Each structure stands twice: as C-alpha cells, then as structure tokens.
C-alpha cells in the first residue's frame, strides 16, 4: 500500500539543493550580463529641470545611459493600473523613468547600463540632476488636510473613496444601549524579503525572442506586461521566476519599472542585462504597507453584543496606485473577523502621499482591520467589565450559521461569504493552550514579585485562495518520471513538496518520481500568481484535477491493453494492476510509451510505439478523435469564491516597570486552515507569519521626516527582529475542511501575521491599564504613554 502523502509531515524536496548552495536566485544568473543602476530622486516631490549625463558618459565601462526621453512608445508611457475599481476615481501611476516630476524619494530618474554594477554606480554618482522642489505631502494627516497636493489633478489627495453598508447603522447605533468611539493609528512597515527584487533579460536577436528572469510572484503577469510594453508577440516572450528569496507581497506588484526597462535595454543593446536591487533601493523604491488612521464607533447591548459598527479609515497609498485599492478593500471587509456586527458601515479614503507606494504585504490590510476590530472588542469588555474572551464569544458567528454571508463585496468582486469555521472550538483550544482562566493567579504572583504582566488576545478570519484560477499540467515520461507544472510562483512555501504530495496520492506514484515546476511560462502559460494565501488552494486543487485527467487516461489505455474495465484497475507505486490480480499489471512508463504512437524510435522503449511493432489496431487511427498523444493532461481550478481560514492568538507580555521594555513571555496560536497538506510546512508558515507580526507590533516602522526622507532605510535602523526578539511560538490546529474545493483546504500563508499587532496591543494594555491605540509601540513610546497617563491621573 502506498503511504498517503496528503497530511503527512513530508520533508521538503527542495531543501537539499538550497542547503548546498545549489539554489539559483536572480543574481546567481547572468554573470556576464551588463548591469544596471539607477539615479533615483533624492526629493519626495520635485520637478526635474535638467539632467546632465556628460560626466558619466566617460566612465570606463559605461554602455548606455537612459532618461525618459530615450524611452520609445509604450515603454515611455505610464505603468499600468493593474486592478481598476469604480471607486478608484483618481488612479495615478509612475513612468518607468520619471517624466518631468518625481513623487517620492527613490523614484527612478536615469538608468545606467555598464559592464558591472560597480562601474554603473560610479556613473550614477557623476550624473547631475537639477530639481525644483515642490512641497511634499508626508503622513496621513497632511494628506487628509490637503494643503498641498501630490498630484495636481487628484483633489484632496484622494485616489479612492468607498462606502459599504449592511443594515441600517444609523438607527441601530441610535438604539444601542452603549456606544464607544476609538481612534486608532497603525504605521508603515514593509515585506522586506531577504532577497530584493531583480530582473535579468536575454534578448535573442537571432530569433527575436526575449527571455526574462524576474524575482517575482507572478511570471505570467510580468510576461504579459513586457510583451505589451515592448510590442512583442506573447509567443516571443518567456518569463521565469527562478528561486526567489522571499516575497511576502512586494513581488506580486508588477511590472516594476525595472521589469520594463531591463528587457527593453537588453533588446536595445542586443546584450544580456541584469539589475539586482540593493537594500537601500529596496527601502526607497519598492513598496510599503500598513499605514492607516482609523475611527471606529460601536454600539452594543448590555451583554456586549454588537448592534452597530461604524468604521471610517484613511489609508496611505503612497505616491501611486498601480495595485489599485485592494489593501483598503481587504481592511474594510476582513475587519469583521469571526464576528457578527449587527449592522455595519465602512467608509475609507485612500490617500496619496509623497512616499513609497503601498501594495500588499503579508496580511494585506487584514492586520489593520484586525487591529480595529480587536481593539473594539477589548474596549467593549472594559466598558462592561466582562471577560475579553467572553465578549468575543458572544459575538461569534456560530458553526451552524455557516455558510455565513456578510452582505459585502470581497477583494475578488464576489460576496464575502464564509464557507466554514468553528470559532467557539478555536477559542476553547486557545484558552486551554494559554491558560486563560489561570492568568489571574499568574498575574497576582507576578505583581507580588514587582513585575507587570498582561494577557492579550486576537481573532481573525482570512479570505484565502481567491480566483480567478490556476492550472496544473502533468506529463508522465516513458521512464515513469512525473513532471508537474503550475504557473504560479514559489518564494519559499515548499510547493515542490506539497504539490508533489497531492499528485503522488492522486496518481499512485512514489513522491520521488514527482517533479514540480512553478512560475515558468514555458511550462504553464496560464496562471495568476502567488498572493492571498492562494497557492495551495488554487494550484493544489488544479494539480489534483490534472492528476485525475492523467490517471483516467492511464487507466483507459491500460484497460485496453489488459482487456479489462478501467474500474477494475488500481495504481500503486507507479504500476497499474487489476484489482485482486496483481500479476496482471503494467507500469505507467509503458503506458506513456503506448500513449504516443511514434514514427521514429530513439530508445528501446520507444520501439514498441513505432508503426511496425504490431502493437496497434489497424482499424483505428493512431490517435483517437477525442484523444491527444502523450500520457499527459491539464486542468484548471476556478472557484466561485474565496475560502475563509481563521485563527486566534494569545500572548503574555511583561513590561519593565521602570524602563518600559517589552518582552513577550508566551505566544500561543490556534490555527484553522482546513485540511493540512503538510503540517510541517503549515507550522513553518505560522511561525514566520508570527515573527513578521512581532516585527510589525514592536520593532518595524518606516520613519519619514517631514520632507519625505526615509530616515531608516537600512537594516541598521529598520529593526527587523532577530531570533533574540521572536518568542517561542506554541501552536495548536483545528482542521475544519473547506466545502468549496475537493481537497478541503484553505490558505495558510498569511495567517500568522494578521492578529499579532492586535494581540500585543491587547496584552500591553492589560499589563499597563491604559488604552493602547497606536501601533507599533516601542519602549520609549510606552514610557512616554505612562508619563502622560500619570500626569492625567495627577491632574
């Protein structure tokens, strides 16, 4: 009996290669390529008056210098608005190289191509750009005030304004026995993958084709953009995501200016060209996320049940909106978490600022939404003097209410309808795990020792696996090797393992025979990308469907050969045999030979498929009317809607009574992503997500000064946590299958990150006894808050 792979903690198949220096990340390719570097704007908002490249031209090794004027046709046009939305009334995007105006520090102005990056940077140093500075808009308050505009034709600095309402909030609020209003603030952070972005393009002038390697989360998207911008037939462009050193969202944004410019320069120069982003460039010219100001008003009854929830928030979208308003839409909808709001009104303004643009970062608007909702839950509990877990429990959607339709439109343009989940069971597990009911004793003991401790909690629901679709293609070679391709990309999630597990089960082959390729348009031209915790749901189900196609074909051919009905056959360890008669069998490799009638033999196995081998029925065509050659097949998975995972976290923190230093003593996670393909990988995703959440809660922020300079654009000053800052993470799992897909799975990629800021705020508030409304929080800020509250109490 073949061991079932689905659900087993299978060791990752990509690891030995990555562990021995065998990975091939973007900058590991193209050692002889020309390299690009950029002159980037030193100002947040300015007009470009003059660009003088004379002194750079003479630098030995410089090949080409380009400004916007040099860019022909579509290459010189604004970058696309990837996700238009009716509410996005003032969408603006930048140019690959700035045209006339710059809108954030770091915007590309001049491109230099040289024999290597050192020389390219020498040339960049010698290019002189004259600017006329314009007043910069930095921070949400300034954007909202709109004394100055980022884009002259975007009034009020508003790119989008959207209101959604379910029920009659005004009258429900008026009738509520209690109301509370919270003003909340959450700051910018960023994905900050260990590998920055990068593009390597190889123009082949012999056949006028282009191969583009990009450190991207969507190779099909990049391919389509490059073909359009360079006016090339799609058939002449191929795009490959090599090993990618982390993405977390920033690499789903596309095309980055460099993804247009590098391929164009390669064609222009008829030479390989590469650009490898350095860390400073990543800080000032990639993307950030999270910055929002929020105003929440909630009406509730004496039991703490919400009757009306009215949320307004202002979202900082940075200088441009190429990725539309996906992030604030997600905040607006996923804010509700596992709760029934009674009635709900949400309104947001997406605002321009002269800062790096904002596109999804792991969690993508959900951490902000969760922060708003969970701060509200704690406020209700405090107001009524009810246990915080109990208040949450009273507002939960119950299992028998599933599927639950909130009556809102989600980020995929489809109804926000939860498919499954057991929130009371999750909460019970969490309380058990963290010792919720024993905390009072623990606190009393700590206080007796002069220590301050606090317990925090946060719950979330995450729409995962959004469409439109992903595909799987499976081909079995004559030696039994199974090649699996899916078009979405991998940045460390272990798809070469988890997808192989699914295919091995479906086909009945050893996992060692299964080889998965992702993100290569040569192998699968139709795909969307890796984001929204969708890869396992979408491509997992797609490769399962494709495997069923191939399995059916294999069984049909085998049934003919063995003269039995396909229903009487089974596949185990790559061998098809008649149930109950194991002697009557045929291996998949042989079926692959038989499936492909040949004119020419190239090896021993192939001889059996040639015309004089006498292995076929002369009455029938070599390939049947409805058939295709080869033991291969493909299928696509396209769901009607997203599937909703959920989880609940709790933390115990200690704050130093004097220095306000904050230490996480325990961090507990209950996580429900439906059926787990590989618990080892799911666990790893949770750990990594929590660590990024801890960074966002206590350490990471983008510190802009009033002129729009990013003051902490290095790993020295942008405080990504080391191991010394991340707590041990205790986990427990619930598996509530999704009814929406055959495998019953939900996404797991972003989950860990979502509630952490809310949980830590909750715990610090519990330790300190005053509200925490602004995150992230540092010891100096907590200390200042203590002093402010002490002064208030004294007066």
């Amino acid at each position, binding site marked *: 009996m073949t061991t079932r792979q689905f659900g087993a903690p299978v*060791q*990752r198949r*990509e*690891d030995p*290669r*990555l*562990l*021995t*220096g*065998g*990975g*091939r*990340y973007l*900058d*590991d390719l193209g*050692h002889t390529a020309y390299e690009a570097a950029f002159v980037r704007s*030193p*100002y947040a908002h300015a007009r470009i*008056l003059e660009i003088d490249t004379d002194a750079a031209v003479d630098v*030995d090794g410089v090949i080409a210098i380009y400004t916007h004027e040099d860019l022909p046709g579509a290459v010189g046009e604004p970058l696309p608005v990837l996700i238009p939305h009716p509410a996005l009334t003032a969408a603006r995007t930048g140019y690959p190289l700035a045209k006339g105006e710059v809108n954030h520090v770091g915007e590309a102005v001049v491109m230099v191509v040289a024999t290597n990056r*050192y020389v390219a940077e*020498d040339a960049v*140093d*010698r290019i*002189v750009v*004259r*600017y*006329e*500075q314009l007043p910069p808009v930095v921070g949400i308050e300034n954007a909202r005030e709109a004394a100055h505009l980022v884009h002259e034709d975007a009034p009020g600095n508003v790119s989008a304004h959207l209101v959604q309402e379910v029920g009659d909030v005004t009258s429900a609020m008026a009738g509520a026995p209690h109301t509370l209003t919270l003003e909340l603030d959450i700051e910018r952070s960023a*994905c900050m*993958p*260990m*590998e920055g972005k990068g593009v390597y393009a190889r123009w082949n002038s012999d056949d006028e084709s282009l191969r583009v390697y990009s450190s991207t989360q969507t190779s099909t998207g990049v391919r389509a953009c490059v073909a359009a911008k360079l006016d090339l037939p799609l058939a002449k462009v191929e795009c490959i995501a090599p090993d990618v*050193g982390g993405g977390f969202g920033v690499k789903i944004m596309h095309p980055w200016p460099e993804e247009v410019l590098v391929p164009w320069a390669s064609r222009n120069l008829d030479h390989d060209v590469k650009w490898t982003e*350095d*860390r400073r460039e990543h800080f000032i010219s990639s993307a950030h996320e999270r910055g929002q100001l929020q105003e929440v008003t909630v009406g509730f009854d004496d039991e703490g049940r919400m009757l009306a929830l009215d949320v307004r928030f202002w979202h900082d979208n940075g200088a441009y909106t190429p990725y539309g308003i996906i992030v604030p839409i997600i905040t607006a909808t996923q804010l509700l978490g596992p709760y029934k709001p009674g009635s709900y009104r949400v309104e947001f303004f997406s605002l321009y600022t002269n800062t790096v643009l904002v596109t999804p970062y792991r969690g993508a608007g959900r951490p902000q939404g969760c922060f708003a909702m969970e701060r509200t839950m704690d406020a209700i509990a405090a107001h009524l003097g009810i246990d915080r877990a109990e208040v949450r429990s009273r507002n939960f959607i119950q299992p028998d209410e599933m599927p639950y339709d909130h009556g809102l439109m989600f980020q995929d343009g489809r109804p926000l309808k939860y498919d499954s989940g057991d929130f009371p069971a999750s909460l019970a597990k969490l309380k058990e795990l963290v010792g919720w009911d024993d905390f009072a004793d623990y606190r009393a003991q700590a206080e007796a020792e002069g220590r301050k401790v606090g317990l925090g909690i946060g719950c979330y629901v995450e729409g995962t696996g959004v469409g439109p679709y992903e595909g799987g293609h499976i081909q079995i070679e004559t030696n039994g090797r199974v090649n699996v391709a899916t078009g979405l990309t991998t940045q*460390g*999630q*272990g798809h070469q393992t988890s997808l192989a597990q699914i295919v091995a089960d479906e086909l009945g082959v050893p996992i060692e025979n299964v080889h998965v390729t992702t993100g290569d348009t040569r192998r699968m031209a139709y795909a969307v990308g890796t984001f929204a915790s969708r890869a396992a749901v979408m491509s997992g189900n797609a490769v399962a469907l494709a495997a069923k196609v191939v399995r059916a074909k294999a069984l049909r051919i085998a049934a003919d050969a063995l003269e039995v009905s396909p229903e009487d056959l089974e596949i185990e360890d790559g061998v098809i045999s008649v149930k109950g008669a194991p002697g009557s069998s045929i291996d998949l490799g042989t079926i692959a030979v038989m499936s492909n009638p040949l004119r020419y033999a190239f090896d021993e196995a192939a001889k059996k498929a040639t015309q004089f081998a006498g292995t076929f029925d002369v009455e029938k065509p070599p390939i049947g009317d409805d058939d295709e050659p080869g033991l291969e097949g493909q299928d696509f998975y396209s769901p009607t809607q997203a599937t909703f995972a959920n989880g609940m976290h709790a933390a115990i923190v200690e704050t130093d009574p004097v220095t306000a230093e904050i230490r996480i003593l325990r961090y507990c996670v209950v996580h429900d992503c439906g059926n787990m393909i590989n618990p*080892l*990988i799911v*666990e*790893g995703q*949770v*750990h*990594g997500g929590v*660590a*990024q959440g801890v960074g966002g809660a206590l350490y990471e922020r983008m510190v802009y000064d009033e*002129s*729009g*300079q990013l003051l902490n654009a*290095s*790993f*020295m000053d942008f405080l*990504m946590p*080391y*191991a*010394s800052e*991340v707590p*041990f993470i205790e986990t427990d799992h619930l598996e509530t299958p999704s009814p929406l897909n055959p495998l019953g799975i939900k996404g797991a990629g972003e989950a860990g990150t979502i509630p952490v800021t809310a949980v830590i705020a909750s715990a610090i508030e519990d330790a300190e006894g005053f509200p925490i409304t602004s995150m992230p929080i540092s010891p100096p800020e907590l200390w200042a808050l203590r002093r402010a509250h002490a002064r208030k109490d004294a007066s």
Partner: protein
Amino acid sequence: MPDTTTSSPISTTTSAVTAADLLADEMHDVTVTVNGVARSARVPARRLLSDFLRHDLRLTGTHVGCEHGVCGACTVLVDGSPTRACLMFAVQAQRHEITTVEGLGSTPETMNHVQRAFAECHGLQCGFCTPGFVTTITAYLEDHDDPTEDEARELISGNLCRCTGYQNIIKSVLRAAEIKREEITRDEGGRA
C-alpha cells in the same frame, strides 16, 4: 543625502568630485584558498569578497542580503570563524582560508550535520538566508557539542531570516549537535 532644507526653490544635487573619482580601478591578481582549493582572479581592490566568491569564482551559495553587514546572509568562514563576506575585500582574503556553504557539503549526499538537520527540521523556507546560518552554526558546533535552546537562540541572533520565525532554525541547531554527537559516537564505536 542632499540637503533638503534649502530655502531656495531650485536646488541642485551636486556630487562633489573627489580625488577618488579620478582613480581608475587598479587591478590585483588575487589568490584565495576557498574550500581548500587555491582560486585566482584578477579583480579591482574594491571587489567585495562576497562578489568575488559569487561572480568571479561562481560560488553563488553565498548570498547578499544587505551589503552593510547586518543580515548575515553572506556569512562565510574565514579561517574557521564566521565573517561577513560583504565586509571584507577580496584583496584582504589572500592570507586566509575561506569556507563557503558549498565547502560544507555541495551535494545532497554529502551534506554536513547542520545541512541535514535543517532538512529534517524544516529549518529553511526561501533558502536565501540559509547559507549564512549554516556556516555560522557549523563553526559554533566545532567547539560546543551540546548547546541549550537559549544558547542556540543566542548563536543565531546575528543573522536575519524573514521566513521561518527562527523556531525551526533553533530546532535545527539542537538536532545538528545531536547528529554530530551520534556521528562521533559511531566513529568511536567503529574504531573500538
């Protein structure tokens, strides 16, 4: 960083031409012992050891994550000690023995105890930071055969990882030490 507080509405970014700008690169024939083999290349003085290893010697297992010495992805062993390859010039490496991740085990079959432990414990995700961890941990376990969990955490606290949350890396450290102890016991048993 240019002065952005200037009151003039028009300002110019000036890149002052220093004497250094006027210098063309002076090339050096650099020979460095890497993974036990003397390797040579002709490079400018400013060639960082990280670039020398990656692009001149094509040993791309050493990764570059920040180029200012904070992330640790480029950590290699210099005479056995973990060192940031981005904070050293190739010309400085000539007197030293360099070990990269490829030198610890360059094929799945020859992975060392640390590499094997990472595979067992899901100690990596995207794999970009991993070589820096593997070199650092390998050096540490040379003279610490049974670290505690706290020591393991401390040991890896100079390297950034954005994927794993470090928990499985700590587990990998403990497991690697265990594998190493098992190997020693087995070797001693074999000799006895």
